[in-house]
């Protein structure tokens, strides 16, 4: 089975996690190196201030080490880290809001746009379709987009998404469901339009 490598990866992570809990600095570094870029990427999707994001991600790791003895034994490491970064970013934003009134909202928004894998597209029809789909995805509400990102880019499960977004299971499930539904609907309309146009033209 193909999923093997993913499971192995998961096992590797767990082994590293155990060692980290026992105070192994090397395991800490390996986890750091492995996930730091992903976490920076995720953090950057909430804030344009890259230095703040770096600071925040490093704080997450610092706390991970300092409070290692109170960490859970089994955990989906990537999901845990993504969720920690998001929670910390949220707290920072709230603090900024209280002290500086610099932001209008207390929740943070996922601002990253999905892009197109141009390299894998050979023909014009596909290119056109993918561009349409990409437009649809990027016009989804921020939270739906974020749910898609966590689900399909990082492979998080529903309960991990719920934990990361700090909502209950049902809401997380709904977010994903609505995202897919919206895309479906938009896609069908586009297809019909294309169909209609082509019948007019020929």
């Amino acid at each position, binding site marked *: *089975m*193909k*999923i093997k490598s*993913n499971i192995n990866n998961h096992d590797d992570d767990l082994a590293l996690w155990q060692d980290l809990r026992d105070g192994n600095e090397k395991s800490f*570094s390996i986890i*750091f*190196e492995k996930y*730091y*870029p*992903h976490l*920076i*990427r995720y953090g*950057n999707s909430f804030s344009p201030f890259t230095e703040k994001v*770096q600071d925040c*991600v*490093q*704080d997450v*790791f*610092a*706390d991970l*080490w*300092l409070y290692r003895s109170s960490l859970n034994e089994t955990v989906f490491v990537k999901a845990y880290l993504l969720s920690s970064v998001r929670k910390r970013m949220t707290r920072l934003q709230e603090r900024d809001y209280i002290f500086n009134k610099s932001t209008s909202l207390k929740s943070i928004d996922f601002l*990253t746009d*999905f*892009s*197109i*894998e141009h390299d*894998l*597209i050979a023909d014009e029809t*596909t290119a056109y*379709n*993918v*561009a349409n*789909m*990409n437009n*649809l*995805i990027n016009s989804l509400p921020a939270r739906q987009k974020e749910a*898609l*990102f966590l*689900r*399909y*880019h990082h*492979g998080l499960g529903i309960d991990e998404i719920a934990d990361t977004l700090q909502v209950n299971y049902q809401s997380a499930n709904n977010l*994903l469901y609505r995202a*897919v539904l919206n*895309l*479906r609907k938009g896609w069908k309309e586009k297809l019909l339009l294309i169909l209609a146009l082509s019948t007019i033209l020929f």
Partner: protein
Amino acid sequence: MQDRNNFTDIEDFLSNESFRRWVRFQVDDEKWEDWTLEDPQRAKLVEEARLWILAMNISENSVSKLEIERAIENTWNKINNKASKLAETAEDSSYFWKNNWVRSAAAVIVFGMLGSWFYQQNDFLSNSSPIYNELIAENLEGLVEQTNNSNKPQIINLSDGSSVLLQPNSKLSYPKIFIGKERKVYLSGEGFFEISKNPKKPFFVFANEIVTKVLGTSFRIRAYDNQPNIEIIVRTGKVKIISNNTVAKFNKDEIELLPNEALRFVRKNLEFNKITDITTDTTLSSSNNTIEKLSFNFSDTPVAQILKTIEQAYLVDIDFPIEKLKNCHLTTSLNDQPLPEKLKIICRSLGNNTSYEMNGNQITISSEGCD
């Protein structure tokens, strides 16, 4: 895991890791392709799922190894700061220090650290060459290594148009093609670097304990394993020097050098000495090599003479049609260019019918004379 024969929705495909890998990286170890072709209805679904994945790419910004290393270092600093704050609040500090046991434990730790520091220092001198090998081992780009075993400098042209004049008994490792947002090469020994300008892709030279970062400039690095110092001498442009993380614990600063400035890293003390005027430093000025002494500012100079200067500087042979170029004169400044760039500029100035070809240290210029 659900059997894929029961897949009915796009989501079934999207959440399947193996399927995603097949679409994005063409890794098909579960025979998705064959499976798709088995059933036309299925093929339609697969095609749509593929469309979704292609439209949902996230461009990962690459974070360089150097950045990650700095981030880890930073994080350890944070941990130490936080830990000491936690200790302060947890314990009444005066009580803490009155405790004899704690005091002697602290003393043991301090002496232990001093001891291991001295030990590490000795270690440094006795086996310093592994640093180069370790650095190479860390790089996964697939490096080419060139060693100069001859008795004269050797020219190396890099894929980005930069050139390196490698001194005897020195070696340079570099990727065939520079990929990613950085250009990285590894030096053991001595070389004169002329780097083609590209502000978007900084150029790093890892020379044992020292990392030199530039955007486009020329400079010399002298980092032999068996010598007490590492030296960097800047000819043009601006150069930044960071210590590699093996010594970063001792010195975290970034040092900037301007033309005619130099830096000496004393391995014994892990110390940086900046030399602001290289002419006053006797060892540096006496060992200064030919290429830095030659001027590449030419005003109305016969092309033959310009090419002669280049031959001297880079220790190359240049073959050119002497008769056809005898009346050609050029006014140009080539100080800041790597060798290929210098040749390109000369050829362009001579006219459209001039071109050059380079084969090792043999350069052939073909020309019909100047316009």
